[in-house]
C-alpha cells in the first residue's frame, strides 16, 4: 500500500467522566484526576463491582428540547456541541448533503431496549434500541444529510470510524465528516462484564504486575475530519493511516500471539507511508487485564523492533475506565493534544513493574515530550483490532 493523502483533524469534542470539554479532559489527564466513582444512575448492588467512569451530570447543554431522551444520543450531542463551537458546520460552511457522520459503538442504543422491555416509556423507545439510532440522532441534530454510518467493531469502533471517515473524504463521498465513538454505562454492560469477571475491585493498573482487570466508563468523542486542502485553519493534526483487522481466534479473548493487532499496526503504518522508526509515541489499548497488556507489549516489541524500549507508551484507561466505543477516538485526540502541548499523560496506578511488560509506559507523572507521529492501538470482542497513525500539526 502506498502513502495516502493526509486527512486533517480540524476540531474535536469530548464528553467524559474527567471533563466535558477538551481543556478539562486534557488537564485531568495530565494531573491524574480520577473519573472513577460508585455508579449511581442505575442499581449495581447485586454486582461484584459497582464502580466505573460515570458522568454524573451532563453540564454542557442546558436544554434538550431537540434531543431524544436517550443517554447515548445526549453524550454524542454534548460532544458535538463542543465540536461545532470550534468549527461551525452550518450550510454556509458545508452543503448538508456533503456532511457525513460516522460513529462507532459497542452497545448502540441498548439501554433503550432495556428500558422498553422493562415497560418504561412509550413503545417507540424500542426503535432507539437499534445500534445505529444514536448516530442517526446525531446526524439529525447536526443537520447532516450526507451518509450516516454506524460501525461496531466492539471496543475498536472509535478507531474504525475515524478510518472509514477518512476514506470517505479521500474518495469524495463527503466534504466534511464528523467521526468518533461513544458508549454509555448501563445495567446491560455492567452485568455482562461482571459475569465475565473482567472488572477489578482494585484500581485499574495498566501494565502493572498486580493488574487484575478493567473498569468501564462512558464517553463520547468526536472529531471533524476534512481533506487537508479543505482544512482551512490550523488543524489539531492529521490522520495518516488506519487499519481494522480480525483475529479469527476467539470470540471474546484476544489472539494469544496478537497476530491480528500486529497486522493492523503494520497495515496502518503502511497506509501512512511511514515505518516503525518514525513512531514517536504509542497510545496503547492498555485495559489492565492480565492478557491484554502482555499481548500488546509483545506486539509493540515486534512492530517497533529494537527501538521499542525507547518509545513512550501510555494507557489512559485508569483515569476514566474503558469507554468502549469512545476509547479509541479519545486516545486519538489525546495523541494530537500531546503533540500540541508537548506533554504525554501518564499511565496512572502503574507502580510495580511486570517483567513481561517492560516498555516505557510513562508511569507516575506526565512527561515533557512532543510526539510528531503517534500510533494508537485498540482491541475488542470478536477479535477486533484497530490501529491509527496520527501526526501532530
Amino acid at each position, binding site marked *: 500500500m502506498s502513502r495516502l493523502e493526509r486527512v486533517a483533524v480540524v476540531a474535536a469534542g469530548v464528553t467524559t467522566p474527567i471533563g466535558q470539554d477538551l481543556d478539562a479532559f486534557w488537564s485531568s489527564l495530565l494531573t491524574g484526576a480520577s473519573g472513577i466513582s460508585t455508579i449511581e444512575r442505575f442499581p449495581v448492588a447485586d454486582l461484584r463491582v459497582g464502580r466505573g467512569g460515570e458522568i454524573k451530570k451532563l453540564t454542557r447543554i442546558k436544554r434538550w428540547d431537540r434531543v431524544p431522551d436517550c443517554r447515548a444520543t445526549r453524550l454524542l450531542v454534548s460532544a458535538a456541541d463542543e465540536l461545532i463551537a470550534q468549527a461551525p458546520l452550518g450550510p454556509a460552511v458545508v452543503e448538508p448533503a456533503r456532511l457525513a457522520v460516522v460513529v462507532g459503538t459497542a452497545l448502540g442504543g*441498548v439501554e433503550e*431496549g*432495556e428500558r422498553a*422491555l422493562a415497560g418504561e416509556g412509550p413503545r417507540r423507545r424500542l426503535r432507539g434500541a437499534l445500534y*445505529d439510532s444514536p448516530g442517526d440522532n446525531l446526524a439529525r441534530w447536526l443537520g447532516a444529510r450526507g451518509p450516516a454510518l454506524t460501525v461496531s467493531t466492539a471496543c475498536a469502533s472509535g478507531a474504525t470510524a475515524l478510518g472509514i471517515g477518512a476514506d470517505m473524504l479521500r474518495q469524495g463521498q463527503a466534504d466534511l465528516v464528523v467521526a468518533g465513538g461513544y458508549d454509555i454505562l448501563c445495567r446491560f454492560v455492567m452485568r455482562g462484564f461482571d459475569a465475565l469477571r473482567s472488572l477489578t475491585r482494585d484500581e485499574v493498573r495498566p501494565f502493572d504486575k498486580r493488574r487484575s482487570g478493567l473498569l468501564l466508563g462512558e464517553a463520547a468523542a468526536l472529531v471533524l475530519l476534512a481533506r487537508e486542502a479543505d482544512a482551512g485553519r490550523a488543524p489539531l493534526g492529521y490522520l495518516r493511516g488506519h487499519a481494522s483487522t*480480525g483475529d479469527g481466534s476467539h470470540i471474546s479473548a484476544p489472539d494469544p500471539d496478537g497476530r491480528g493487532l500486529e497486522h493492523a499496526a503494520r497495515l496502518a503504518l503502511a497506509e501512512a507511508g511511514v515505518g516503525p522508526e518514525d513512531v514517536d509515541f504509542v497510545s496503547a489499548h492498555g485495559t489492565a487485564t492480565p492478557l491484554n497488556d502482555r499481548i500488546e507489549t509483545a506486539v509493540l516489541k515486534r512492530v517497533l523492533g529494537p527501538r521499542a524500549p525507547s518509545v513512550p507508551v501510555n494507557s489512559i484507561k485508569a483515569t476514566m475506565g474503558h469507554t468502549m466505543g469512545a476509547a479509541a477516538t479519545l486516545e486519538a485526540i489525546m495523541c494530537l493534544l500531546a503533540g500540541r502541548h508537548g506533554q504525554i499523560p501518564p499511565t496512572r496506578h502503574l507502580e510495580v513493574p511486570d517483567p513481561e511488560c517492560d516498555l516505557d509506559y510513562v508511569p507516575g507523572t506526565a512527561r515533557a515530550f512532543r510526539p510528531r507521529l503517534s500510533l494508537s492501538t485498540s482491541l475488542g470482542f*470478536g477479535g477486533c483490532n484497530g490501529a491509527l497513525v496520527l501526526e501532530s500539526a
Partner: protein
Amino acid sequence: MSQAAGIPAPSVRAAGLCSAWGAGAAAVPADARAAAAGRSLLGLGRPALQGERFRRATRECLWALAAVEAMLEDGRAERGAIAGDRTALLFVSAAVYGASNRAFIEGTGGGTHFAYTAPAVIPAEAAIEYRLRGPSVLLIGGPPAALRAMWYAATLLAARACDRALVLGVETFEECADLYARARRRTAPPLVEAAACLWLEPGDGRLVLRSGRGGSRPDGARRLGDMLAVGPLAEVALRRHEGHPDPLGLTGAWRGEVANLIITKGAG
C-alpha cells in the same frame, strides 16, 4: 445525491445465500408477498452444523457460517482458498443482535451468553472457522450499509490491503417477532430471515456509490421480501443465479437515506 468519483470495481467471484425461502437463490419466489401468503415473518430456524464449538453459538452465528459455506460451494472453492490475512471480512446487519440482546436483558441467556450480544461476535465465528485474519469492518444499518460495505471492500481491494473481500450479512427476526409486529410500519412485510456472503476480487470496472436523503423506497424487496441489510447481498446472489454475474445497479433505503451503488464494466 452526494457525488462520488468511482473507484476500481470488484468482480463477484461467488455468492452464497441462505434464506427463509429455501436454499440458495433458486428458492427465491417471483413475488415475496404472494409467496408469504399472509405471513409477516418467515424464519430460518437453526442450521444443523456439527461440532462441539457450535454447541453454545447462537443461530445467527451459525447462519453466518452457513452463508460462507454456501459461497464456497457456489465458487467451487475449498475453505483454504479464503484463509489467512489477505482476506478481508466486512459484516453488515441492521438488527441481528436483537435476539442475543433480548435474551441477555430478560435473563434467559446467562452470563456466558454476554459475549454473543456483541455484533462483532457473529463475523468472528466465521473468521475463526475459516481462519480469516485480514482487514475486518462491521457496519450497522439497513440496505445502504450493505452497499457501503461493498464500497469499502472495493476500497480495500483497490488499496491492496487484501486480495479478496467477503461481504457477509445476517438478519434474524424470530426471537423479536412480537417487537417487529409492533413496528410493522417501519418494515415492508414479509420480513424474511436471511444470510448472504459475497466473495469479491479485483475487477476491471468502476464502482460508484451515491447517496442522498428522501426519494422513494426501492422495490428490490418485491421478490426477496424485507431482508434489511442482507437485501442487496441477496440481490447480487439472485442476479448471479439468473445469469447477470456483475451487479450493475443496486439501491437501498434506510432511515431516509437512499444509496445507489453502480458498477460499470470495462472502464477500470
